[in-house]
């Protein structure tokens, strides 16, 4: 599919889901009233639309784009379709950073400490993955390194939350493991957006280098790619995007796996074209999941990660099946 057509299709899909996200909610506001309330003050309805549904929908776009783009960049760099921020422990390390920032009171004293700490967690685990598995590493090493880092970060997150004097802290382990966009406000969006934007700028420029890397590191290095700079850019960009997304929405898994996997055939498998397409596709997937949690169980705060895992885990198993020779 030609690039403009594909991106236009993904953009309209994201737009339609954004609209659905604005119109669907437990309050049961009629679509016409809802849209009118967005632009014109209608009291409580306007409050619902502007302060609850709009930030939630926009955050869904940003979180999804971050996870999709982060996944596509990691896969392109590691040259492995199994590379995914959630599976490799980058998201859970970001969650650990965020939980530490909240529990130490750092986030309350200095708001940007929350995304910054998540970014640091994501960067540390991202660097550890690259060191452990290496860009030439086989899938098995990659997945094992990811399991170890996820388990460690998850356990430390639970430990920190269990040690908290706050009685609610322990109950939100689920949130950090599965993610949710419920009741997020514009303050969360403004907190995460600068980091996501910086990460996106960094990652979207890596297209040509990731294309060259298709031919291996040696060939890429002789095609003008600075490998060290590329590696640092990938770690920094993925950490900024996934860290900021995790800091405000928890760990939403499998988006970075499923979206690039589904879109790869449509972009002719080119890593450079996969980057923007995955950002749009990720936004659409998270918006769809967030609409679905509100349709399935509107009165319960069903976690986003439940739905993305329902779609993502089978894709993951299929990929393992397809690459089992390499895994062995």
């Amino acid at each position, binding site marked *: 599919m030609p690039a403009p057509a594909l991106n236009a299709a993904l953009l309209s899909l994201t737009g339609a889901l954004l609209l659905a996200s604005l119109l669907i*909610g437990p309050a049961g506001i009629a679509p016409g009233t809802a849209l009118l309330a967005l632009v014109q003050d209608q009291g409580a309805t306007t409050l*619902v639309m502007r302060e609850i549904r709009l930030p939630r929908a926009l955050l869904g776009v940003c979180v999804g784009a971050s996870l999709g783009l982060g996944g596509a960049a990691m896969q392109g760099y590691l040259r492995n379709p199994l590379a995914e921020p959630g599976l490799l422990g980058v998201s859970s390390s970001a969650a650990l950073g965020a939980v530490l920032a909240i529990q130490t009171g750092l986030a309350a004293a200095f708001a940007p400490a929350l995304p910054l700490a998540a970014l640091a967690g994501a960067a540390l685990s991202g660097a550890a993955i690259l060191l452990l598995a290496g860009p030439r590493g086989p899938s098995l090493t990659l997945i094992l390194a990811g399991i170890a880092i996820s388990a460690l970060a998850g356990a430390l997150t639970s430990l920190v939350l269990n040690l908290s004097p706050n009685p609610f802290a322990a109950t939100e382990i689920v949130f950090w493991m599965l993610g949710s966009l419920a*009741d997020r406000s514009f*303050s969360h969006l403004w907190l995460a957006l600068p980091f996501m934007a910086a990460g996106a700028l960094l990652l979207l420029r890596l297209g040509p280098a990731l294309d060259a890397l298709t031919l291996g590191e040696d060939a890429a290095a002789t095609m003008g790619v600075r490998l060290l700079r590329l590696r640092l850019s990938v770690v920094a960009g993925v950490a900024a995007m996934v860290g900021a997304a995790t800091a405000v929405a928890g760990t939403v898994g499998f988006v970075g796996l499923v979206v690039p996997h589904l879109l790869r055939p449509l972009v002719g498998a080119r890593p450079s074209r996969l980057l923007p397409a995955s950002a749009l596709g990720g936004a659409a997937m998270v918006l769809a999941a967030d609409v679905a949690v509100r349709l399935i169980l509107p009165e319960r705060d069903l976690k986003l990660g439940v739905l993305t895992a329902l779609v993502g885990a089978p894709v993951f198993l299929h990929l393992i099946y397809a690459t089992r020779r390499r895994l062995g």
Partner: protein
Amino acid sequence: MTARAARRIWAWLRASSAALALAAAPVAAAPERVVSMNLCTDQLALMLAAPGQLLSVSALSQDPRSSAMAEAARRLPANHGRAEEVFLMRPDLVLAGSYTTPATRSMLSRLGIRVETLPPAASLDEVRSNLRTVGRLLGREVEAEAMVAEFDADLAALAPAEGERPDAALYQAQGYASGPETLAGEILAAAGFDNAAAAAGVSGGAFLPLEVLVTLAPDLVVSGGRQPGASRAEEVLDHPALRALHRSEAPMGSDWVCGTPHVLAAVERLSGERRALAH
């Protein structure tokens, strides 16, 4: 089923109901060494026990954020709900709540200690019955009856005059709303408010999406008190959409937690806010 088997079961049932009747009868001698392991039984026991009768209360009841009687509780040694420490105090009666770990309760029973479990009060009426139950268990029936009478008198004095009943919502961390059929809901009603969550179909406790609450637009929102440390669960209470609603000055503090006469303090404070709303 054969007739013989039926007869045998019938005999067994009779025997066990006789045993139950025996257990329900007032105990001959009042317990002398009582340990309470639950925030709410702690407070009931502190109110009713004879001097020296109560040995220990739970550590939670010494924390003013959750306990309405922290000061009184601090005069006794604390326990942390562990079977071992409770056993070593050599109690002859242990008071537990239904949320006390079942394993701990059954462990203590196996060790030969009498363990009595009280459900949390879900209504103002259960405040009365809990007072009477603990009074009976401690052999302090007379004190308990006096306290119930005082409670009834105070509650009647606080009863709102007929007239306008504004809407209020009880909204806590994670968007948990208390409906009319809860202790908190009855406190709200006693203070002269209608429960806004009832309009959204909430009767007991339920998670109420923030946008539903905003659409209900209650005249007053009463939230939970802030806990130490930080949590995401409480972030919803800072949401700009919630801040736009009228918020109660006083949070749902320790007075709201347990079914004791302390709930009257909460009723009184809320009544004051209702009168302020009317102006």
